């Protein structure tokens, strides 16, 4: 489980909580727009060591079929994963 995007953000006055508490892991916006560079994983080179997953400040890398996979909705493109990868399996591609 991880916090996930909801279909609808509370907007009307009666949808705003009366007390300062609310459901945990309630996301309404993506972070994808922050990104200047997008990490691309070369699945041929990726050994599935998952060091990139370990060091990702945003936790957007997960294991899929024994390889690393990026959630581009929330990746900010910091590039830590590229530097951590010992197998040069990650490249940063400019966002257009």
């Amino acid at each position, binding site marked *: *489980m*991880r*916090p996930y*995007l909801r279909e609808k*953000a*509370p907007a009307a006055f009666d949808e705003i909580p009366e007390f300062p508490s*609310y*459901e*945990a*892991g*309630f*996301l*309404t*916006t*993506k*972070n994808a727009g*922050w*990104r200047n560079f997008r990490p691309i994983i070369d699945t041929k080179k990726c050994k599935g060591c*998952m060091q990139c*997953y*370990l*060091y*990702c*400040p*945003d*936790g*957007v890398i997960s294991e899929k079929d024994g390889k690393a996979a990026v959630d581009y909705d*929330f990746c*900010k*493109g*910091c*590039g*830590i994963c*590229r*530097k*951590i990868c010992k197998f040069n399996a990650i490249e940063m591609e400019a966002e257009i």
Partner: protein
Amino acid sequence: MNALSKDEFFYGHKACAGCGGSLAVRIALKALGERSIAVLPAGCMSAVGFNFPQLCFGNNAIISTFAGTASMLTGIRAGLKAKGIEDVQTVGFAGDGGTADIGLQALSGAIDRNDDILYICYDNEAYMNTGIQKSSLTPFGAKTTTTPAGKNIHGNMRPKKNMFEIAAAHGIPYAATASVGYINDFISKVKKASGIKGTKYIHVIAPCPTGWGISTDETVEIAKEAVDCGTWYLAEFENGEFRLNFRPKEFSDIGEYLKKQSRFRHLTDEDIKIIENSRNAKWEFIDNNFKK
């Protein structure tokens, strides 16, 4: 890595790209698991984690007053006890300012009462959230907006406060230093702390690309280099004894470490010599007083 929960408990947050503090919080929560309540005072991690309706913590999390991280942890622990709940961790994440300056009194009180809490200080060495003002954990020579580098005064003139040994001096059951550059060491310390009754304090170095003047992909490297060049160290305090976890065979070049960061770029060779001498004095103390 197997010690970590597969779940993410800090996700979709609005921290800057490459933020070391968010890495520390994310990893600590994965080590503690879902049954943990996090307390976050004013600081980067509460500012980026709770932007209603964007709520980025997957477990229970609450914002405390700036000074009250430790006292809120105490209260939550007391509430859990009253309810008969025993399998929940209470963990606080405060920055360097929230720990060494503003929250020190509450932390000291909690350690004194030996409340069963885990307090993690993610140290990015200045008040980064409000725009890089000096805290008492800002190291000597660092340029901040309140300690600018000029012709006569080269940034911060005061050394970094020794929070680890201050916590230890209380006779705390467990205290440790860590770095996000040595993440496995940090994970094992969080795990170890979670199994100890009483107050636990972990001080983790978490570089800030914005405030340190490094690029966003250098966070982990620079956190590792801080340990390798000897300006930071990995140690534990337990049963009244200090123990060093790791000693670099040979220190890497301290000048190189400093010059990579724009907050230190103004330093003269003499300034670097001062930093090198204080590092050597610190390590002499460590060698004489810490177990290996």
